[in-house]
């Protein structure tokens, strides 16, 4: 094959692929709408397949020709309405389409692809429904056979009011170079003959066509075997070219008789004869280049010829007679469309013609094509003929949403540019930016001498920026390139899974860099597959639970914060976070503690964990999971992130956040060991500045590895210089480069420094941590040799959900850097992903976090992760308020615990002081009479003790009486002895032992301790409480009680429930916030001191919920005026001691009055 042919073949592939891409959605539409499908769509389908067939024939791609041919036949039937668009039809067509795609994808191998199965299936469909239409050959002959009536019909131009334009008038509209005298249009048997054979099909097509004055047909001798028709509109580029070069078009009927080989000879002969004066544009039926035309015996072979010759000359050249030759006039409107305006130079005319041709269909010979270079596919015009484009536009104007894709938007003039050229341009634009940067730097000095220099530089600056921006844009492609393949995938999946799924696509026009687009396809396919497979329920299930039968899936792209978000939402089953957790637990991927501490969001993101998704079981349970780790890996490779939100029963949304481009990224320039490195900002969470003097405080060691204590987290640390093995000059400025110090040495040094500082009496610099703190420290005249001023920076990085800190010496700058590939010599180095050129022209390496992590052997695998979490847990425990408890033993041997603050005092009393008045025990003490209450009796727990004797007969041992801290109460709880007082936190178990007046039990020192609710116990004993609650009745209102201590939580809840509140509990601020966001509350009572989010933070967040006005009460174990003031500032109504029922209820009652 000659080089030219190769080029043509490339064009064919491109064109065919474009056709295939419209064919698919059209087929889906056809399937959906069946026989109601707009004729326009069927026509477009037909044309697409037809033109593939034609071109493939030209190149001798037999297999493609065969398959497309039979597909065309079937489509022809559908168009004629002689066959209904049943699922069988569309199925067979779709399978054919797939094979076509495969073959066109690898044209050179298409000859060896076996498409016979597809052909057979389609043939079967044809046979099954069409009467008489036997083999392919017969069908083949059909269009020709049906031609005469068709021609006749079309040949009655009077129907067509516009078909009469005076040729002269048109001539005047023609450029001088265009010799072709446009005569009564001879669009003749346009593809009509070839394609829309039956009048039936022609009918629906007529209205749009009416606007196009070209349906006239050349008169020809009735005896002449009328061959195929060619719609010149299909060849607009050639037509344009022809107009410019003064060529005409002829239809040449090759011999009807003769065998295949004979015809081949004749055909080749014709081609040869024509070669110097014109060429064969197309044939009908299509001929494969090296086919022996065996199947064409007895078939009229029509050639569309373009040549500069007059008809008679052509006839004599081809040694034929004029009856076989038929002049095809260029349709007037087509001529107008493709013809350049008057007065153009030939060159301009040619260009114009080409540009015009853009708006019409591309043919194999296309020179200039729509937009393929940068934005293939999206703004491509309708791949139909001119007529169709026209109707398409009309459709758009009339607002009719005829086809799914809508009409083509106004077409821009475009040029095809190779990607490599674009890449080169981008590179050079990048260099230009660098040159600009250097220039700007140099300009500072120059400007002092030449004041005019400033504005010049500024101008250069802005132009450079604009160039860069535009060049980057040129690489952008609409996401629809990827999105468009999903309707088909979803359709196939839905069918296979016997589900119904409606896929809606939004934001297909959002542009992304080519490199990003290319890598988006796989992850999205995975996600969509998962949705169809797991998320969407079966139709009957859906109807049962009141959902629409068809699952609604939306794939959308939109801009947000300079990133492109791609979201995939469904209204399916959703993911149960708890079950995901459960599964992860079972698989040992998380520890129980982790699971407990895990937020719903974190749990959901477990579906991206590699092991988890692999397990079949889990995918059943979680609803998702297969290959989700692949999704995350791929997206993160692109510098993007994945997140998932889900509501059980409601559906799931997965959001991908992607950078617009990979070629230019924002990065921090840092230095480590006197060398500069670029750190991509994506994944950079924050930068923490650590004063050397405070380093030892913040940096700890966990199992040999340094970690940074940052808020609630322990971050594993790596020192960039250590990992890279860069010699370090530390402290910077001390010179001797041999002094390589490891982090630990530096820590030791830091400790020494701290000691020195302490001795010196100077306070160490407080380490500050903050977001993106980038001081320009280059100008800072700091003597770094003073250890107190040594500073290091920790870049907190996030890799795949794991955070770690990277220690660098300095943070220099934030720059938009142009990413350049890493020379192959360094490909083995895990730590670097690419290179860039900094503003001063030097080369810097871009750090690859994941590689660095690997190199540094930071491993976030289960164990270490657990340690991390466990440490966290320990910290939480430490934070948890400790309670002072008095442990007492009852006469029956039960151990009870009473919180110290509930107790006013504990008195030792002699049993002799006990008295019974009116059947009730009293204690005379200190001149007053106290009602004596035996808590075990009151709660009915006496039987649980080991010595079930009557307490009153306990003998002479001293008893102790606990006087509760309740004002105006003359009562005491009687115990036999105090065991201990203990400061501890209580893990209250409210279930194991239940009794009225009992909060619950807890294990302290391996003994079961019961925690009575003193208030209730007193009430149970019949002691009238000096209630406030008598006035307080808040039945029907809802309160949220937030406390990390289960005991206090239960206590407070209890108090509130006693006055009618419906109480909901939360163990920390985060949980509370979620609850506040999701349901209605009338009161919020929160502990102040909690891990995670404390009471003040919570109060701060409350206004952002729907509960901006909710009254808030703070509870605390240590009340002080300081705290009270803080509470007041934070918006709390009041601050009460954690266990003070009366005060709490009083506050509540006051609020009621308000």
């Amino acid at each position: 094959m000659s080089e030219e042919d190769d080029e043509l073949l490339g064009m064919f592939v491109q064109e065919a692929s474009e056709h295939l891409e419209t064919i698919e959605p059209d087929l889906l539409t056809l399937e959906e709408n069946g026989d109601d499908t707009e004729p326009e769509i069927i026509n477009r389908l037909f044309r697409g397949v037809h033109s593939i067939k034609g071109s493939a024939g030209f190149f001798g791609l037999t297999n493609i020709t065969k398959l497309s041919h039979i597909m065309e036949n079937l489509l022809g039937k559908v168009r004629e309405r002689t066959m209904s668009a049943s699922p069988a039809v569309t199925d067979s067509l779709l399978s054919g389409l797939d094979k076509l795609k495969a073959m066109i994808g690898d044209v050179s191998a298409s000859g060896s692809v076996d498409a016979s199965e597809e052909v057979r299936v389609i043939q079967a469909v044809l046979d099954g429904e069409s009467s008489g239409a036997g083999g392919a050959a017969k069908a083949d002959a059909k269009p020709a056979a049906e031609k005469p009536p068709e021609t006749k019909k079309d040949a009655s131009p009077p129907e067509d009011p516009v078909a009469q334009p005076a040729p002269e008038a048109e001539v005047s509209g023609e450029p001088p170079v265009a010799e072709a005298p446009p005569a009564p249009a001879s669009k003749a048997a346009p593809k009509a003959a070839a394609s829309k054979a039956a009048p039936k099909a022609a009918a629906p097509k007529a209205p749009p066509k009416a606007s196009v004055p070209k349906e006239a047909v050349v008169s020809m001798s009735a005896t002449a075997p009328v061959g195929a028709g060619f719609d010149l509109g299909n060849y607009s580029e050639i037509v344009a070219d022809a107009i410019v070069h003064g060529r005409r078009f002829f239809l040449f009927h090759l011999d009807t008789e003769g065998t295949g080989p004979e015809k081949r000879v004749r055909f080749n002969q014709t081609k040869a004869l024509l070669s110097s004066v014109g060429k064969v544009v197309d044939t009908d039926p299509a001929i494969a280049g090296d086919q022996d035309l065996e199947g064409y015996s007895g078939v009229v072979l029509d050639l569309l010829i373009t040549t500069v010759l007059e008809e008679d000359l052509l006839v004599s050249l081809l040694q034929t007679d004029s009856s076989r030759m038929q002049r095809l006039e260029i349709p007037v409107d087509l001529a107008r469309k493709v013809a350049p305006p008057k007065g153009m130079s030939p060159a301009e005319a040619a260009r114009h013609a080409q540009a015009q041709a853009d708006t019409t269909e591309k043919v194999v010979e296309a020179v200039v094509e729509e937009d393929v270079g940068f934005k293939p596919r999206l703004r491509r015009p309708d791949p139909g003929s001119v007529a169709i484009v026209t109707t398409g536009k009309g459709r758009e104007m009339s607002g009719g949403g005829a086809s799914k894709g809508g009409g083509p938007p106004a077409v821009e003039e475009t040029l095809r540019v190779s990607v490599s050229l674009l890449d080169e341009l981008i590179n050079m634009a990048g260099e230009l930016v660098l040159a600009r940067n250097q220039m700007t730097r140099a300009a500072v000095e120059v400007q002092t001498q030449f004041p005019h220099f400033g504005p010049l530089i500024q101008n250069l600056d802005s132009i450079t920026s604009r160039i860069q921006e535009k060049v980057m844009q040129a690489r952008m492609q609409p996401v629809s390139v990827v999105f468009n393949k999903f309707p088909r995938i979803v359709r196939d999946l839905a069918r296979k899974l016997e589900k119904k799924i409606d896929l809606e696509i939004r934001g297909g026009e959002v542009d992304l860099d080519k490199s990003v687009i290319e890598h988006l396809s796989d992850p999205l396919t995975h996600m969509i597959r998962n949705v169809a497979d797991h998320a969407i329920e079966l139709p009957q299930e859906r109807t049962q639970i009141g959902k629409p039968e068809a699952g609604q899936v939306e794939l959308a792209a939109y801009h947000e914060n300079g990133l492109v978000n791609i979201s995939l939402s469904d209204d399916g089953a959703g993911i149960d976070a708890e079950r995901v957790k459960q599964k992860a637990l079972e698989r040992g991927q998380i520890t129980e503690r982790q699971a407990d501490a895990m937020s719903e969001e974190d749990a959901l993101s477990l579906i991206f964990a590699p092991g988890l998704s692999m397990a079949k079981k889990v995918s059943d349970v979680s609803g998702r999971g297969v290959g989700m780790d692949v999704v995350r890996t791929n997206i993160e490779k692109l510098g993007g992130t994945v997140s998932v939100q889900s509501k059980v029963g409601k559906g799931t949304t997965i959001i991908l956040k992607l950078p617009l481009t990979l070629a230019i990224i924002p990065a921090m320039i840092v230095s480590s060991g006197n060398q500069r490195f670029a750190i991509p900002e994506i994944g950079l969470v924050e930068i923490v500045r650590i004063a050397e003097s405070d380093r030892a405080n913040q940096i700890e060691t966990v199992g040999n590895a340094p970690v940074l204590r940052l808020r609630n987290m322990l971050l594993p640390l790596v020192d960039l210089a250590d990992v890279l093995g860069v010699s370090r000059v530390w402290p910077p400025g001390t010179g001797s480069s041999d002094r390589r110090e490891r982090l630990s040495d530096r820590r030791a040094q830091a400790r020494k420094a701290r000691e020195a500082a302490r001795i010196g009496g100077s306070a160490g610099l407080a380490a500050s941590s903050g977001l993106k703190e980038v001081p320009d420290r280059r100008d800072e005249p700091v003597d770094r040799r003073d250890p107190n001023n040594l500073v290091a920076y920790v870049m907190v990085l996030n890799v795949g959900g794991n955070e770690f800190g990277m220690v660098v010496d300095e943070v220099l700058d934030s720059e938009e850097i142009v990413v350049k590939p890493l020379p192959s010599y360094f490909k083995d180095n895990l730590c670097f992903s690419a290179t860039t050129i900094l503003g001063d022209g030097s080369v810097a390496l871009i750090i690859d976090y994941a590689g660095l992590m690997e190199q540094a052997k930071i491993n976030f695998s289960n164990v270490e992760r657990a340690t991390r979490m466990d440490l966290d847990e320990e910290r939480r425990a430490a934070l948890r308020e400790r309670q002072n408890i008095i442990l007492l033993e009852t006469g029956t041997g039960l151990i009870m615990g009473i919180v110290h603050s509930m107790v006013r005092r504990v008195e030792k009393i002699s049993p002799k002081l006990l008295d019974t008045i009116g059947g009730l025990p009293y204690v005379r003490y200190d001149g007053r009479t106290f009602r004596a209450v035996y808590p075990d009796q009151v709660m009915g727990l006496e039987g649980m003790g080991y010595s079930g004797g009557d307490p009153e007969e306990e003998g002479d041992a001293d008893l102790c009486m606990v006087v509760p801290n309740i004002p105006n109460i003359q009562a005491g709880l009687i115990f036999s002895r105090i065991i201990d007082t203990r400061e501890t936190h209580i893990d209250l178990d409210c279930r194991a032992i239940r009794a009225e007046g009992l909060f619950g039990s807890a294990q302290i020192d391996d003994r079961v301790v019961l925690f009575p609710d003193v208030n209730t116990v007193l009430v149970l004993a019949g002691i009238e409480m000096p209630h406030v609650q008598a006035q307080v009745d808040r039945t029907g209102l809802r309160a949220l009680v937030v406390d990390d201590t289960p005991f206090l939580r239960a206590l407070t809840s209890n108090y509130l429930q006693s006055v009618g509140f419906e109480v909901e509990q939360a163990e920390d601020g985060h949980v509370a916030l979620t609850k506040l966001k999701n349901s209605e509350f009338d009161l919020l009572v929160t502990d102040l001191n909690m891990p995670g989010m404390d009471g003040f933070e919570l109060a701060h967040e409350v206004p952002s919920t729907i509960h901006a006005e909710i009254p808030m009460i703070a509870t605390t174990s240590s009340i002080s005026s300081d705290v009270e003031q803080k509470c007041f500032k934070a918006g709390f109504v009041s601050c009460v001691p954690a266990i003070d029922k009366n005060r709490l209820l009083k506050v509540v009652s006051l609020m009621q009055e308000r």
Partner: protein
Amino acid sequence: MLISTFTLGELYLGIDIVLVREINRSMECTPVPGSQDYIRGMLNIRGRVITLFDLKKRLGWSDDEVADHATIKQYNVIMKTHSEVLKINPALAESKCPWEDPVGLAVDQLGDVREIVDDNILPPPANMRGISADFVHGVVEFERNLLIILDVATVLGFDERPSG
């Protein structure tokens, strides 16, 4: 063919000029942590990132030998890439220029451009000092000087031929 010549310590070396893109005075370059010791680092030359080889270290000179000439201001011989040579001389590109990355060699002093006749190129003698025969394409005698023509592909780590 034309040979661009230069010195490296006492060695008189040359490279087919078709393979040479440009020669610069040496400039600061960015070291790449963890790379081979004979790779000095990366340079930016008009927006191209060049990997610079320290030729002495590549030839296996000891640190002392390298240090002997440390004060000399060196030159960087920047090589063309495979695709660049391909445009000029496809045969040469295929046979002698397999590298796709822009690379440079750090050398001591520049010499003249010499025209030599292919027939005069002799196989490397066995007893050369300072350079292994693996890195030598051939030698030519010039005014009692031995001009060693470098096998750049081997120097850059593309050794197809079995090394001795």
